[in-house]
C-alpha cells in the first residue's frame, strides 16, 4: 500500500512544476503559499491556532482568488509534461487545462486527508463545500481534477451530477481525456454519458475507453436515438456508430447496412469501421458488398481518420 499522501504529493509536485514554469514569480509564490497553508491546516487546527471555520474560509478565499493571481492561460503542456501526466495518472491528458485549473487543483491535492483516522470526513466535507459554492470556472476546475484524487469511488456521484450540466465545458471536464468514467462509472452512467455527449454535440473521440466499454444496452440506446434522428431528418454524429459495432445485434446490422449506403462518405466509412468491429457473420457479408470501403479498412482507415482536424 502506498503511504496515504503519496499520490496527492506526486500530483502536487507535477502541478507545481507546470505552474512554476508558467506563472510570474509573484503569482507562483502566492500559489505555493496558499498550497502550503492548506497542507498544514490540519496540524494548525490540532494545536488550535486556527479554527476549522477559519481553515475553510482560507481554503475558499484561496480557491476563488486563484484566477486573479494565476490567470486563465492555456497550459500547452509539452511532450515531456504530457508523458509525466500519463505516468502520474494513465490516460489522463490535461490538454485543455488553463493555469487557474492547475492552480485550483494544486490547492485541492494539498487538502489534508488520511486513510483511517477520520480525516476522510473532513476532506469530503471540504470538497462538498467547494462543489456546492462553485462558480462556472471553479466547477470546471473541480470536475477536471477528479481523476487525480484518491478515493475515486467517493467522487462518482459528483461526477454524475456534473454530467447533468448543459454547460459543455463542465461536461467535457469530466468526460474528456480522463480515465475516470471508464474506470468508475457503472454501465448505465457510462451509457447516459455517451448519449448526453451526442445530445449536446460534444465529440466522442476524447472519451477514454469508448471501444472497451461498448455494451449491448448502449447499442440499443444509440440505434434508437439514430432512428429518432432519421425520422426527424436531422444529422447524426458519425461517431455514434463507433459504440454500436462491437455489440451489434441484427437490428444494428440493418442500420449499419443502411448507413454504408449513405450519400455521405464519412457515414459510409463510419459504417465500415463499425461493421469491422462486429463479430457477427452478417457484418462481414455487408462489408464484402462494398469493396471501396474494405480497401480503405485494409489501408488503415481508423475512427481518427474521420475527425475534422
Amino acid at each position, binding site marked *: 500500500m502506498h503511504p496515504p499522501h503519496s499520490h496527492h504529493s506526486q500530483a502536487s509536485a507535477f502541478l507545481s512544476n507546470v505552474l512554476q514554469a508558467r506563472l510570474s514569480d509573484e503569482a507562483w509564490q502566492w500559489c505555493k503559499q496558499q498550497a502550503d497553508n492548506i497542507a498544514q491546516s490540519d496540524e494548525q487546527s490540532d494545536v488550535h491556532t486556527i479554527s476549522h471555520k477559519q481553515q475553510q*474560509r482560507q481554503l475558499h478565499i484561496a480557491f476563488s482568488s486563484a484566477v*486573479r493571481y494565476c490567470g486563465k492561460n492555456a497550459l500547452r503542456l509539452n511532450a515531456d509534461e504530457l508523458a509525466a501526466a500519463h505516468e502520474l495518472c494513465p490516460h489522463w491528458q490535461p490538454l485543455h487545462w488553463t493555469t487557474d485549473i492547475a492552480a485550483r487543483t494544486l490547492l485541492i491535492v494539498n487538502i489534508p486527508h488520511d486513510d483511517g483516522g477520520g480525516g476522510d470526513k473532513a476532506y469530503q466535507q471540504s470538497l462538498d463545500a467547494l462543489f456546492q*459554492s*462553485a462558480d*462556472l470556472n471553479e466547477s470546471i476546475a473541480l470536475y477536471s481534477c477528479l481523476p487525480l484524487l484518491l478515493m475515486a469511488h467517493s467522487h462518482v456521484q459528483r461526477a454524475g451530477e456534473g454530467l447533468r450540466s448543459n454547460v459543455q465545458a463542465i461536461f467535457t471536464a469530466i468526460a474528456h481525456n480522463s480515465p475516470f468514467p471508464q474506470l468508475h462509472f457503472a454501465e448505465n452512467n457510462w451509457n447516459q454519458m455517451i448519449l448526453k455527449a451526442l445530445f449536446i*454535440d460534444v465529440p466522442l473521440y476524447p472519451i477514454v475507453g469508448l471501444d472497451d466499454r461498448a455494451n449491448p444496452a448502449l447499442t440499443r440506446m444509440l440505434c434508437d436515438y439514430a432512428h429518432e434522428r432519421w425520422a426527424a431528418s436531422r444529422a447524426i454524429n458519425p461517431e455514434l456508430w463507433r459504440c454500436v459495432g462491437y455489440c451489434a445485434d441484427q437490428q444494428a446490422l440493418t442500420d449499419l447496412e443502411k448507413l454504408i449506403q449513405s450519400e455521405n462518405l464519412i457515414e459510409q466509412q463510419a459504417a465500415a469501421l463499425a461493421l469491422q468491429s462486429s463479430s457477427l457473420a452478417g457484418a462481414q457479408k455487408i462489408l464484402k458488398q462494398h469493396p471501396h470501403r474494405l480497401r480503405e479498412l485494409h489501408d488503415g482507415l481508423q475512427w481518427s481518420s474521420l475527425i475534422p482536424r
Partner: protein
Amino acid sequence: MKFIDPHVHMNARTTDDYKAMRDAGVVAVIEPAFWLGQPRTHIGTFIDYYATLLGWERFRASQFGIKHYCTIGLNSKEANNEALAEQVMDILPQYVCKEGVVAIGEIGYDDQTPAEDKFFRAQLELAKEVNIPVMVHTPHRDKKKGTSRSMDVIEEHGIPPQMVVIDHNNEETVQECLDRGYWAGFTIYPKTKMGKERMAAVIEHYGSERIIVNSSADWGSSDPLAVPKCAAVMKERGIDDLHIETCCYHNAIAAYGQSGQFNESDWLNSDSIDQRLLFDGNSVLRGQEPLVE
C-alpha cells in the same frame, strides 16, 4: 452604441429578453443578489441562488452574447430574519471574491429596522475587508430620509463614496447623492420609480457625471430594454451622445471596474456567439436555428 445594464435580475427573465437586449446593444449586465419575491427560509436556498448567479445564469447570458456579472450580498428585506441572516453572513466570504463579483449588494434599508441596520453595517465592513464596491438599494418607502441615512452610515464606516453606487435615486435624492460624492443609480420602470423622460430631464439638469442608468428588470412589470430606450429618448431630446454613453455605459465600468472584475476588454475581445456549440434538447435552445456570428 453599446449599453450596460448594471442592475437587472436576469434569473427572472426569459431568453427572449436576452436576445432583445443583445439586439438593442446591451453587451454586459450586472445582476444583484436579491430576494425571490417572498422570504427565504433556509440557508441552502441562498447558497444555491448565489451558485446560480455565478454559474448557470452567467452561462445562459453568454449563449446570447452578453457578459454577465453579479453582486453578492444579503438584501435588506431578508436581513429581518436575524437567525437566517447570521448564517448568510457566515457564508458571504466564500462568494465575494469569486470571479465576476463586482460589488457587495444590493444592500441597505427596506423598512429601516434595527436588523436591517445591523446587517447593512456588517456588510459594509466586509466590503472594506475585501476592497470591492458596494451597491446600495435605497428604500422605496421613506426614500429621502432612508437615502440620507444610508450615506451617513457608509461614511461612519469609513468607506469612500466613490466606491459606492446609491441606486434607485429620484429627483428628491439625486442632489444630495451627487453632492456627497457618490455614484447615483437610477432605475427606469414603466410606471413607477423613474421614467425615461424624467431621466432625460435629470441629465439635462445635472449632466452625466457619476450618473448610472439601469432597468432593475425583475419578475414584476419592468422592462429589460429600459437602458437602450432611455438612451433613445435622451437622443430625441437633443442630449449629446457623449452624455448618453457616459450614463448608459462608461460610468458603470468606472464604478464597478474598481472591483477588478469588470473590464471593457472582457466583452470587446470576447468570442462571438456560437450557439451551435449546444443545440437540440438540452440547451437553452429548443429547436431554433442556431445563431452564429
